[in-house]
């Protein structure tokens, strides 16, 4: 069995399969190592994304389903992933883990 080769993370593959209700989602775009973040931001805006944050190697932006697929096809994009929930890591024997 060959793995599919896509720059979309599994969570976004599933999301883009859902019926398009016009909703948008925050994604993290990994830029290829030689990519220029400023140019990536400009290009994302040109494509129609709402850029939230740009840092070294990463840009976060709001995209539609169609736009997620389009961004993933850009040559300067390494991967497009969905934000991951993080959990605080305290623990107490007398408390439910939060």
């Amino acid at each position: 069995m060959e793995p599919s080769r896509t720059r979309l993370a599994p969570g976004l593959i599933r999301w883009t399969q859902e019926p398009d209700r016009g909703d948008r989602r925050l994604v993290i775009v990994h830029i290829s190592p030689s990519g220029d973040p400023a140019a990536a931001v400009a290009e994302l805006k040109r494509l129609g994304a709402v850029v939230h944050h740009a840092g070294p190697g990463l840009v976060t932006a709001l995209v539609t389903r169609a736009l997620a697929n389009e961004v993933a096809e850009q040559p300067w994009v390494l991967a497009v992933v969905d934000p991951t929930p993080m959990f605080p890591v305290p623990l107490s024997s007398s408390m439910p883990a939060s």
Partner: protein
Amino acid sequence: MASLPRRSSLDSQLLLRAHLASAVGTSEPSTHELAVKYLESRVERLAGDEITVKMLVDTPAADEAFAWIKEQEGTVISADTAVNSRADIVGLILARIPVAALLEANRLPWLRSMEASRLLHPKLDVARGQPTRLGEALAAYPLAGDGVVVGIIDTGIDWLHDDFCNENGTTRIDRYVHVSSQSGIPQISMYTREDLNKALQGLSKNIPPRDDLGHGTHCASIAAGNGNASKGRFRGVAPDATIVAVRCDPLEDANVIEGLQLLFEIAGDRPAVANVSLGSHRGGHDGTSAMEVAIDRMSGPGRIVVAAAGNEGISGIHLSGELAEGSDFIVNFRVADPDYQYVDVWIPRGDKVDLYIEPPDGTSLVPDGTLQTIQHGTFFAVFVEDALNRDQHLAVELWDGIPEEEWKIRIRPQEVLHGKIHAWAGTNHPRTSFGLFQADASPDCTVCIPATATRAIAVGSTVNRNQFISAVGPQDYSYLTPGELSSFSSHGPTRLGVQKPDVVAPGQFVTAALAEGSFFYKEPALELNRSVDGSYITLQGTSMSAPFVTGVIALLLEREPELSTEEIRKRLQITAHRDQTTGRVWNNEFGFGKLDVLAFLQYSGVTF
């Protein structure tokens, strides 16, 4: 003749309490007199008709335990994650039960032990003493983090807490940042020292909720609280450091990344150390996820990130194995959370495999990247070449699963070059992310993301004390041995074999600031952890050990503001304490050993 010990599940205090209670009202005057005298002399927690007990139970019998407590008209205060998992281990239930039920409890087959609170001498500041030699270090080197920014990227901060205020009542918080992406719309609100001072004087009320959970407040207090509310008793490690608190709402990596960048921008020319006591197991555990990339790229001279290693050492959320041609490898996982859970299987590039998802009914389905609903739940399974690390990734997500049903992932190797596979599983709630792989689980490679980042200082936890005083009396955990690794502390290495954790520090138990109005403040189950005056709470976890190291790094940055992560790691590695409990280091559990602040500062040659 040697006497044989009497076998009892109840500790001696409970046994005495049970027998005396049964003796009250008997016709035997001496026993009656003794019983009444005893009961009258005891503090309230032991007198009365009910008593709070800690029950260690065999978790497969957890339902029987809950039923028994109900039958006795008792009340379950809380149950730990082990109990909720029903995995075949021992779990803790905290309950109020009638004293009259104690003798019967002693005959319950599933009850391993039952303990009451005990009168003990307080040892509230142990983390500062022998375990880390922080006290000695500060006596030799008067450092307090002056001029250093300590950033807490977390759930917020209770900026009204006295430990974050100066003696004159003004705030010690340089900036309070609220990074929010609720409803998908990103938003940043930033509050300056002046804004907070106005709010402290009651002149402004437009600052958003402080800390709903209380986690960020606790971490900030460990690293940089000044202990004002306790007259210095519970001061943090670097009490003169400047605090920048970032509240991430929700707690997602995108918001944490934004928070980190804002922190370092706010720090400007000042050295800064960020604490991230947050984690996740979604990703390759190899340095390529967004959080790991962000930490590696933002770190540099005077820009340090400390991360909690994670509390999954005994959680059963990871397994690994070797593929062999001609032999199927089966990943069994149980349904722990009917709402949602995931399994990520990582297969090295170059290995050729066939994959099948096998629900409990024995059917075999291929991971074709479509959403499928069957009688056992709705699942999505897709097999991709990960765009970031080029390894093969099978992602399985399950909704509406039937609790305790067992699913299988069958991996049929066709051609094996590398062969080492890893899998991580979880849910959306840490309390149900437990025992998902059951007997197949391995404690190794449970260091969470982003502690797996190359440039993060990853911190595990040791037991620093086994007793503390709370609002309801002394708490005793004498089954824990100070100096040992906390059983929950996540083990390394990373999936690629990188050495994590770096060091271990006190994380079991740590008393620090309690955010008023937070979950930690209100949750009844935490009554045993809160201090008498309600300003502090005692918690455990690598969330607590990480800010201890964050504070220590702030001390060093005060003198050497340009230090890099690599240099700090090298010094931690060289000076970490090794003993019989650590064994040979580096190892998966202790990293390079136990934090030794005195040796760390001595080696660094701090001079005045």
